[in-house]
């Protein structure tokens, strides 16, 4: 059985060898030994306080182990993000449907055993057995979402994010949350199989290993690759708003007071980043002095990139004023956050449109900026 587990599990993960597992188990049961030793030495039953105190580190060990395993189940066997493994796999007769050489990404019977054993260990230390599914499932889902973003199908990530949000929303009902995670698995299983079908996930626009310089990278025939379609901007903003709502809903009043200003400043920062991305490598066709002198105060083709950041800044400033006057409800904060994120990603012009049709001068890049690769 142990041999089968090791075959099934990714073998290049440091925790997954017998030595490490024995060390972890030894540390884990050392706490029980301490309790039994004290009880035996003093010939008294183990005091409840001591029992509780010793269970704490055991609980943390189990939690960390499960999160680690959840991440490892995706990261360790997945060819994405491992160029050498991926390139080697491309040269082999491997095709979707065959087992991956470094182990499966989809869950199997041995994962069930792992969850059953750790669930049982949780009950022995007085915790919910469903915590095993919860922690392993969250880590597994997050790791999978990150790989799906690069391998596709990308939009399934939205569905998984929504499910995670609902899961957080039902907390502290651990059983219901674990049930939601378990219900998500068929979708994840389908997504993994679907993504493996498109192996080796070559980019649609070829990446250039050789840097081409500013003339070719800015004036060459390849379009700008950064594109956020309207639908994606809408979904991302709604998910972000939902995330803010759930976070604030589950937070204490003190935590809310700390989170809300952070969100506002993050919004200002994001607006600045958006402006920087559009402005990077370009310069204003007419400076302030020239605009005043020539009477051309507004150049729509260039100034359009200021609209979204200024709108965000105005909305956030208004939110700060309202926040001082009264308490902002989580639903209001969530809706507001969704609006800000939508402006950030969805408001025109798109970066591609601005780069191709905007009224700007290309700054003659020097130094580090000019060495940017086209694929960057």
């Amino acid at each position: 059985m142990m041999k089968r587990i090791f075959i099934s599990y990714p073998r290049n993960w440091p925790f997954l060898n017998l030595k490490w597992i024995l060390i972890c188990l030894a540390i884990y049961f050392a706490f029980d030994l301490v309790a039994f030793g004290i009880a035996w030495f003093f010939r008294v039953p183990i005091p409840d306080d001591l029992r509780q105190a010793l269970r704490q580190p055991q609980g943390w060990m189990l939690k960390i182990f499960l999160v680690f395993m959840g991440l490892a189940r995706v990261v360790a066997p997945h060819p994405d993000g491992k160029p050498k493994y991926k390139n080697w796999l491309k040269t082999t007769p491997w095709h979707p449907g065959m087992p991956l050489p470094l182990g499966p990404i989809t869950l199997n019977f041995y994962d069930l055993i792992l969850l059953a054993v750790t669930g049982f260990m949780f009950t022995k230390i007085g915790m919910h057995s469903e915590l095993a599914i919860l922690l392993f499932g969250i880590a597994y889902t997050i790791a999978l979402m990150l790989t799906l973003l690069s391998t596709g199908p990308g939009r399934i990530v939205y569905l998984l994010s929504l499910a995670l949000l609902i899961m957080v929303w039902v907390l502290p009902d651990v059983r219901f949350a674990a049930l939601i995670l378990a219900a998500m698995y068929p979708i994840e299983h389908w997504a993994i199989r679907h993504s493996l079908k498109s192996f080796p996930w070559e980019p649609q626009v070829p990446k250039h290993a050789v840097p081409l310089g500013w003339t070719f990278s800015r004036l060459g025939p390849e379009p700008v690759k950064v594109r956020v379609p309207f639908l994606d901007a809408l979904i991302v903003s709604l998910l972000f708003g939902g995330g803010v709502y759930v976070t604030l809903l589950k937070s204490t009043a003190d935590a809310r007071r700390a989170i809300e200003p952070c969100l506002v400043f993050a919004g200002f920062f994001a607006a600045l980043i958006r402006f920087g991305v559009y402005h990077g490598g370009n310069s204003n066709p007419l400076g302030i002095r020239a605009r005043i002198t020539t009477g051309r105060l507004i150049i729509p083709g260039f100034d359009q990139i200021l609209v979204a950041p200024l709108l965000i800044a105005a909305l956030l400033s208004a939110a700060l004023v309202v926040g001082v006057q009264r308490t902002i409800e989580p639903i209001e904060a969530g809706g507001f956050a969704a609006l800000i994120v939508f402006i950030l990603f969805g408001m025109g012009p798109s970066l591609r449109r601005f780069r191709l049709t905007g009224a700007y001068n290309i700054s003659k890049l020097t130094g580090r900026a000019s060495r940017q690769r086209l694929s960057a």
Partner: protein
Amino acid sequence: MIEVVHVTHHYGIRPVLKDISLQADRGEILALMGPNGMGKSTLLAVIAGALWPVIGRVKIDGKWRRATPEDELAIRRQVVYLPAEPWLPKDRTGREWLLAVGRLYSIPETRLMDHVPRLLSLFDLETKGDEPIAAYSTGQRKKIALAGAIVTEAPVMLLDEPFAGGLDPSGILALKRIFQKHREDRDATVIMATPVPELVEDIADRIAIIHNGELIACDTLAGLQRMTGKAGPLAEVYESLVNMGASSKIEQYFGGSQ
């Protein structure tokens, strides 16, 4: 065909181009000439799309620059721009860079594999072609940059001072021959900026002369000769048009030393 329509541009409040209109036909070699700092490079950058003119527009093959994403991409596939001081990846070999540029312009791999060695040979870079560009001399860097523009096979070439930057006589000769061949065989349009009349006299179909940001003449050599009443070489015609007073300044200089 390239049309420059009433282009005015200024850096800050300093005017550089003043209401310039000109056109270059398909298969034409047009030389932009003028003293240093008079707006040749700025005009070329405006045509290339690197600068946005404060007033006026540029049309290439019937499409306005930066009008719609589709039109702009269509233009970019047709145009290659080489600034006077091009950027090159110093840690890569010339051959690698040429291949990368060719791929950017979707040149078929087989044609690229055939063309790149011929280009390297033409510019006497067969051996250097496989060394990092950091090891190249100034002239060799200029050659590899020019080869980078040529390898794109773009029908519109916008070249800022292609003969400057340490290019040796064999390189100059090769480049002139390439321009002529591209014009004859592929109907390519070449617009180049240069301050030296002797370098373009024998290849340019027309010469546009820019002085103080204004287009003061744009014609064939014969046309410019008629306009100025000078029958001599382009240098003499050019001198009379821009009225630099170089001859009198030289005489004044040597006269002052006696």
